[in-house]
Every structure is written in C-alpha cells, then in structure tokens.
C-alpha cells in the first residue's frame, strides 16, 4: 500500500492517468475519512453515555412506575420491570384525586401565564414607547424586584393573605404571580429593538395604544411570548413552597403538593407514588419539548444579545 503512495506521489498531477488519480484519491483520503468516522462515532457514544446519565432519574422513574412492588423489592439489579403493569397508575389515580390536582395546576399555571404575558406586555409597552415622568425611576424599581427573593417575603405574604381570608382559594395561588420583572425586561428588550417610527406611524393611522399592542407588538414578538409562556408555565406548574403554605384543602391543591401526599415510605405505595410523579411530570416535559426552540430563541436572541 505504502509503495503505491510513493509511486504516484513522484509524478506530477498532470502526467497521471485517470486511473492513477483515482487510486491516489482513495489512498490519500482514507486516513481523513477514518478519522472523521471515528470522531463521529466517539461523539455519539460519549453523548449517549452522558445523556443516559442525565436522564437516569427520569428513565428510572418511568421504569419503577411500571413495576409491581415485588419487582422493586429485590436485592438484584432492577432497571427494567420484569412484569410491567399499569396498576400503579390506576392506583395513583384512585388513591388521591390526581385528576383534580392536574386540572387545578392547569388552571393556575394557565392563568398565571396568561396574566403575566398581558401585564408584562402592557408594562413593557409603556416603558419602551411612551414618555412620562418618573419612567426611569419606575423601571429601576421594577428591576429592583428581581433582587427580592420570593422566599424572603413568603412569611409576610402568608400573614397578609391569611389576614385577608384568602387561604385555600385559587386566587391566592394566582394573583401574587400575575407579573414578573423578568418578563417586563424581556419584552422591553424586544420592543426597544423596534424603531419608534413603528409606533408613530400607527398613531398617525389612528391606531389606539391597546390595538397597537394587540395587533402589532404582540404578533411581532411571538418568539419572546413563546419563551415567556414556556418558562412561566413550567415554573408555575412546578411551584411548591407557596401552594404548600397557603392551600390545605384537597379541592384547590396543585399537583406538586398533591403528589407529595403520596410521599410515604409505605412499601406498597412507592411504585404508585412514582407512577403519580411520572404522570405529573409529563405535562411540563411535553410543554418544554414542544416549546424548547421558542424558549431558546426568545431567551437568548431578545434578552442577551438585544
């Protein structure tokens, strides 16, 4: 093989026959091709290992959810159920009003998301297109709220809402979350990238502010809204501390609190509990997978670069 290389290399390219050229190509390209294939295989292999490692908790949970209790309680390796069953899901649905919890969570997370998109759009519109006294100060104040962690105010908030008699209600879960400084900031970043003439032209055409927001700004910031919807919905769906404090009744309970009611070390119920967890993870994961592209585009094209 190596003889051929030296042999053809000594000739000038023009003197070679098509046959010789072909052979030369084959010989010379081989190491590069081999290296490339090896690199690709290695990359996919390493990715597979890391991805499996990252997904292990989720895959394991799914696996347990299908296991009868006897499968779980063995000393041997039990990554995959030997007798897959749907009993756990059935049981989880009957033992606690899981459907009710899911509906509650959808209602709460949906309304929070909707409310945030609206309130943040309005505020961002005002901050980017209108001129008024104290605009900068107000904007600073809004941004300053990012510095106050929700956990630091949670006690006072709890005392406040309980003095209002708001405990055990939907409104107590929704209203405190109806706006977000991050959302206002994100939308403002988007709006600032539009020329002011866009607004002025609309005003000259007799377009009202609200109409301008609804028919011009919001369609133009779809990716920002998409990112916001995904992010807010998932966060609201996963909310834990606040609902834990303010909601004690079954009717209003959201999934995260509801499911932790299943959290016991009672041997019989572990597989059922995990089945419940799997069921309530599905909505947030689905929304994440569907909206992932939007989320990334909105978060990073608008906020970071803009």
């Amino acid at each position, binding site marked *: 093989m190596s003889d051929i290389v030296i042999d053809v290399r000594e000739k000038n*390219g023009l003197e070679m026959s098509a046959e010789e050229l072909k052979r030369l190509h084959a010989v010379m390209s081989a190491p590069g091709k081999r290296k490339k294939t090896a690199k690709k295989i290695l990359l996919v292999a390493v990715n597979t290992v890391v991805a499996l490692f990252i997904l292990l908790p989720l895959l394991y949970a799914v696996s347990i959810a299908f296991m009868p209790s006897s499968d779980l309680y063995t000393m041997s390796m039990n990554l995959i159920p030997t007798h897959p069953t749907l009993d756990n899901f059935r049981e989880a649905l009957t033992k606690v009003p899981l459907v009710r919890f899911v509906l509650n969570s959808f209602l709460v997370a949906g309304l929070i998301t909707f409310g945030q998109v609206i309130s943040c759009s309005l505020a961002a519109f005002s901050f980017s297109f209108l001129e008024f006294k104290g605009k900068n100060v107000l904007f600073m104040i809004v941004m300053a709220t990012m510095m106050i962690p929700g956990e630091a105010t949670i006690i006072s908030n709890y005392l406040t809402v309980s003095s209002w008699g708001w405990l055990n209600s939907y409104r107590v879960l929704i209203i405190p979350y109806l706006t977000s400084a991050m959302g206002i900031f994100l939308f403002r970043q988007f709006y600032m990238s539009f020329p002011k003439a866009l607004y002025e032209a609309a005003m000259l055409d007799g377009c009202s502010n609200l109409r301008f927001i609804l028919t011009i700004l919001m369609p133009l910031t779809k990716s920002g809204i998409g990112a916001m919807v995904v992010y807010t919905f998932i966060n609201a769906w996963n909310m834990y501390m606040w609902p834990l404090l303010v909601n004690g009744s079954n009717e209003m309970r959201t999934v995260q609190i509801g499911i932790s009611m299943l959290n016991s070390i009672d041997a019989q119920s572990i597989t059922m509990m995990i089945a419940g967890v799997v069921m309530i993870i599905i909505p947030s994961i689905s929304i994440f997978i569907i909206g992932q592209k939007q989320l990334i585009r909105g978060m990073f094209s608008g906020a970071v670069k803009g």
Partner: protein
Amino acid sequence: MSQIRLNHICKSYQGTDLAVKDFNLDIGEKEFIVFVGPSGCGKSTVLRMIAGLEEITSGELWMNGKLMNYEDPGKRNVSMVFQNYALYPHMSIYDNLAFSLAIRKVPKKEIKKRVTETARMLGLEQLLDRRPAQLSGGQKQRVAIGSAILREPNAFLMDEPLSNLDAKMRTQMRVEIAGLYNRLNTTFIYVTHDQTEAMTLGTRIVVLKEGVIQQVDTPQNLYDHPASRFVAGFIGSPSMNFVDADVLSDASGIAIESAGDGVEASNASNVLELKLNDNQTAILKRFHYEGQEVTLGIRPGDFILKKNAGGQKENVSQAFPVKVLSSELLGSDRLVYFMWEGVKCVADISADDEVARGDVIEICMKLDKIHLFNKNTEASIFAHGEKLAQKGVSDYEEV
C-alpha cells in the same frame, strides 16, 4: 511547475447543484491572483477549498506537486485573512499576532522579534497591549494581515478583506496591500466582488459567475478583450453599454436600427451604419455572421463628441445625434446619459465639454474599440473568434 494547481475542482453541498464547476487554474509563484465575481459566484468557496476549510467534492488541489485535498488546513502552509478579520477577542493584539507562532512552540524571543518587526511594518506598535474591540476597522484589518504575514507562508489567502471598511479606508488599505505584495514577493490569492480592487491589485484575474470560470487574464486584457458579455459588463466602471445590432450582409459593417431616441431622425433610412476594419470583417466572415443579429458593446470612454473627433488618429464612426437625459460632472470627467436603441447608455467625455440635460449632442464611436457578442452564447465574437481561428475552426455555430 506551478505552485498551486487546481484541477477540475468541483464543489457541491449535500447533493445540491454544483457551487463550483470544473475549476481549472494554475497559479505560479509570486502571482497576485484575484477571484472576482458577483456574490454567490463561488469565489470564496474556491478560496476556502484551497485553505482546507471546505472539502473538495471532486478534482485535485496540488501545491508544490503534492496532493493537498486531504491535508489539514494547518498543514498547507497558507495563511488567511477573513472578511470579518476573525481576531481572537479575548487576546491582546500582541497575542493575536503571536498566536500562530505560539502554538508552534516557537521560542518566545523569536516570537517577540517577529511580532515587533511586523507591528512596526504595519504601524501597530502602539496598539500591542489593546484588545481587538478597542481598534478601528482599519486597525483590525492591519492586525489580521500582520498575523498572516508573520508566519511567512507559501501563499496568502484573502477573503474580501476590505469589504467591511468604509470607502476611504478601503482605498488606503488597497494601496497598502499592493505595497505589501511588492515587498513580500509571495503568492497572493485574493477574493473580492469589487472590480476596482481586482483591476488595481491583481496580476491575473479570474472572473467567476455561478461557479464557472468566465475568463482568466491580466487586468489589461480583461478590460480590452473581455471574453464574454458578462465579463465585459462586470469589468470597468461605469459599465460597458450594450445595444442590438445587425451585421451587414457583406460583413463590412454593422447596422443599428434607429438613431438616438427622442431625436428627429437625421438620415432617411433611420439606420446607423458602422464600417468595421478589415480584421473585424474577416472574423465575421470566417464565422459566417453575415446578416446575423449581434450585441454591440462599447465602453463609455469609447464614445467621442463629434466636434472632438477630427483630431483623432483612430478609426471613428459617423456621428449620430442623441438627447442628453442627464449629465454628471466627476472632476475631470463628465458622464452623459442618453437613450439609444431603447437602452440607457452612458458616455464618458471630458469635463471641458459642457453638456446639459436636454441638449442634443452628436457623438461618434471609436470603431477599433467596439465589441460584438454572439446573441446566444454571449461570447465575444472578436476575442473568441481570434482564439478559434488559431485552432482552425471556421464555423460560427461553434463559437
């Protein structure tokens, strides 16, 4: 033996149409080759294939007699200047310049010597501690060029290096690059879409269109003897004028049907007849163009006002009247626009001749300077014809 040889090079992206088709070129040592063409013509792709940044789909790239198709970019001993300068943003200018030597583990002392030398040559001494973000476009470009020459490679590849600069800076850097070429005496391969850069810098120019070489020639030949209507229109500013014409039945001249638009016809037949020289007639005859439709091409500078035509030694056509649409004064030159044969034409005349919008002027053409193009193939009949005539071909169909 030529230093770089591109042999039947083709490039296609994932089975789509060829971006570069059958590219053949021999680049000698110390040539300044310019690839020029409109955007998307494949000129950058060819350059990037030479650098090793793009795979060659088929064909061979030889450098100094070695097949380079499968060599890593770093092993080709070329350096490259990118359109956006591609400076390392987190490194100082010194480190940017030193990078290629530092990764080769060249001794620090030697690096320092060469960096200072290059920095002095390019006037960058004061900037060595700065970051790229603190530099102006022109300075960044100098750093990019500096880091390219520091390595003393076999060839410099430059991918539209001036297109991000403003007009004034571009002219200045153009002169500097020309100076650098004279001093360094190395092969330059330079990509641009700007024909002025190509004409002023290149020792040879490769004109590309849609991935196919249109013509490879010296700047002068490219201007005087464009091989096709495309090259003729692309090279030269303002562009060549093109009008339809008919070859006379005895091939002794060509006829252009109507006189200048908006002007009362001065001769009864409404036809302008141009007498061609013997050489031109011979080619037309040889390839059977008698009575055929052709495209006449004439550069703006090859028009001449009738009143100035007397003193000319050259073979000048009869005059014809045109109505001036507009007149632009450009310092020593004046561009006069007019409609002719339904086409907007421009003549480049002396600024001393005062011509205003709406005037009717009598102009002539320098007949030896006209170009005729085949209507179908768009090839230049005279340029192509002479070449083919040497090979003994005599049928115009093959032109």
